[in-house]
């Protein structure tokens, strides 16, 4: 989708929500962000990958909260999540999911054309480049623009094997 838009339209201004993970700045298109709040109380959920922090009650919606610093191993040692963190509620295809960040995310308007395709070095920091829409250079800042819809597919989040191991029936031999 973004690719085809790029070729058709002249040079639209796009709005990003920019947040920090580890030392870098990342951006998401604003239309993918439903809201930003102080992280609500999270109930830990057994049998999920460690970066899935649990579930929380966001205005009556129960959503999963994930920690991308942990997911992509971007956390520098000794930099634990602060006691008060922020959660961006992102609308993925079929559900809403919360992404925990350490600082208040900020809006930023840029021209679409300054988003460049991701260079290869990105892959060194564990983020598979298919999630990356591109990289925006704004003066001396570099913002990695993520494609949340690709990042937040159920199989990505759950790091799923086809069937969860909790069903004993699956392991039984069938005649």
């Amino acid at each position, binding site marked *: 989708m973004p690719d085809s838009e790029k070729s058709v339209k002249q040079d639209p201004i796009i709005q990003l929500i920019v947040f920090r993970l580890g030392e870098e700045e990342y951006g998401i298109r604003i239309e993918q962000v439903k809201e930003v709040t102080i992280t609500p*109380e999270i*109930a*830990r*959920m*057994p*049998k*999920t990958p460690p970066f*899935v922090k649990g*579930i*929380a*009650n966001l205005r*009556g*919606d*129960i*959503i*999963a909260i994930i920690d991308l610093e942990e997911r992509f191993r971007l956390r520098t040692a000794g930099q634990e999540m602060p006691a008060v963190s922020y959660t961006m509620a992102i609308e993925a295809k*079929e*559900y*809403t*999911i919360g992404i925990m960040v350490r600082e208040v995310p900020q809006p930023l308007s840029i021209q679409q054309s300054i988003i460049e395709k991701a260079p290869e070095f990105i892959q060194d920091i564990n983020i598979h480049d298919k999630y990356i829409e591109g990289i925006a250079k704004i003066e001396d800042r570099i913002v990695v623009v993520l494609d949340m819809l690709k990042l937040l*597919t*159920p199989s990505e*989040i*759950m790091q*799923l094997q086809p069937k*969860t*191991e*909790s*069903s*004993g*029936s699956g*392991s*039984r*031999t*069938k*005649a």
Partner: protein
Amino acid sequence: MKSREQEYREMFMAEALEYYDAMSRHISELERNPTDEPALNELFRFMHNLKSNSRAMGYNAIGELAHHMETIFGLIRSKEKSFTGSVVPVLFTGIDTIGEMIRAVGANEDLPEVGRLMDNLDRLVRGEEPVLEQEEEDDEDANRKLELSDLVYIQIRKLDHLMNLVGELIIDRDRVLTLSQEIGNPALVAAATHLSRIADELQYSVMDARLVGVGSLFSKFPRVVRDVAAAEKKDVELTMTGEDIQIDRNILQIITDSLLHLVRNAIGHGLETPAEREAAGKPAQSHLTLSAQTERDDVLIQVQDDGRGINVESVRRKAVERGLVAANVAATLDDDAVRAFLFEPGFSMAKEVTEISGRGVGLDVVKLAIDSLGGQLRVESVLGQGTTFTLVLPTSIAVKGALLFQLDQRNYAIPLMHTDSVVSLMPDNFNVVGGVLITRVQEENVPVVSLRKLLHNGDGPLPPAVKADVQGRQDIIIVKYNNRRLGLVVDRFLRQQDIVVKPMSKPLDTIDLFGGVTLLGSGQVCLVLDVPALTRLFLAKRP
């Protein structure tokens, strides 16, 4: 309380009037464009439905007319006739007459005379010209009445939405009640109590609006039984009771396939042929009973046959063959425990695959459907005398009784439907057998596992239990699923409470250990454990 007949008649009326309105609309479309195929298909379909419904309700005159009309629409559809010339006024008259007849049924009046119309329809079928009388139609047009039905059809989706909103309201109600008690302002407490009462009433009204009679599902079975019995060459008499019992429409929807499966199974495998029955000294005609009854807050639906019954020994043998249980263990299991194997995936007792049942999908599918509702499936059987399957179902999906407990400072809920008992035991009540902690509850050995270890132990098998693990008093919830009891050690019991279970949101819904979540009055999120999945997890991971 209305009688069932009256309720059925109202439903028939509402549906028939709706058909009539739709048919009037479609036939006008057809007049404008005589080759309008969608309109023609709809007309054919509505006529067909009206015919079946009328006959089912005993309004044979309407059924007969609809049947004749359907025939002609069928001919037009297959291009043997066209919607032109004298066909048009006859069909218009036909639909108007159907409208009159439906209204006459509603008003408890005599049905109008349809002899001439039927003659005309017959003539059309034979390819002859109908006898038309112009003035009568004008007369009819002048008398035409516009009517609105007393019943409202509502999409179940809208009711679902309403139910969800009420669920949210109940959660907020609990929250407001808790807060008002904490704050202690008398005016606030009074307002919160009033709010609470209204919210309760609203909840029951919405739940009530979703209730339908079990009969609406049962009524499909006489035909199913007839067809299956004919195909299987069995002589079956079907008895149905408790059609008035009310249950949530979505629950009925979910168990439809299960009930169909059980009935087919009963006829295909449970019941014998007349010759076999006579040889066994039983009456040649076999009996199948579908019954519904309420038991406390639950609805029990039973499928009972007087057939050959389940041979526990052959189930035992088969379970060993399939590797479900070791031979020496199998020998010690009681009959109930053996019959529980019937619900294991892929376990079919059918010796041959028949046309009707035994295609490899077995009772496990039924079991899973019932589990998904938080219900139970039981089987009782006496060899040579018959088998009874009992579905224990909640009346409503939304509200469940649950036991709340704490583990690692977190609140969890476990549905009461699967809770057997709650015990607090000292360490000397436990033994270790084969790496599994065992205790005696009500004269029975029950395996006990720390819920913490079961949930947080990663993917490997559980480490063998040792007696030293058990320190101090142990709070244990005994859960029961598929005749197996399992004790779960938790940190602290909290209380029993009615909860509104919200389904687990995506993408976490793939974790089957949790049946959903609920919000407590404090606003805290509380995970609702799924006992069937928990039991399977324990079986898969026990040391």
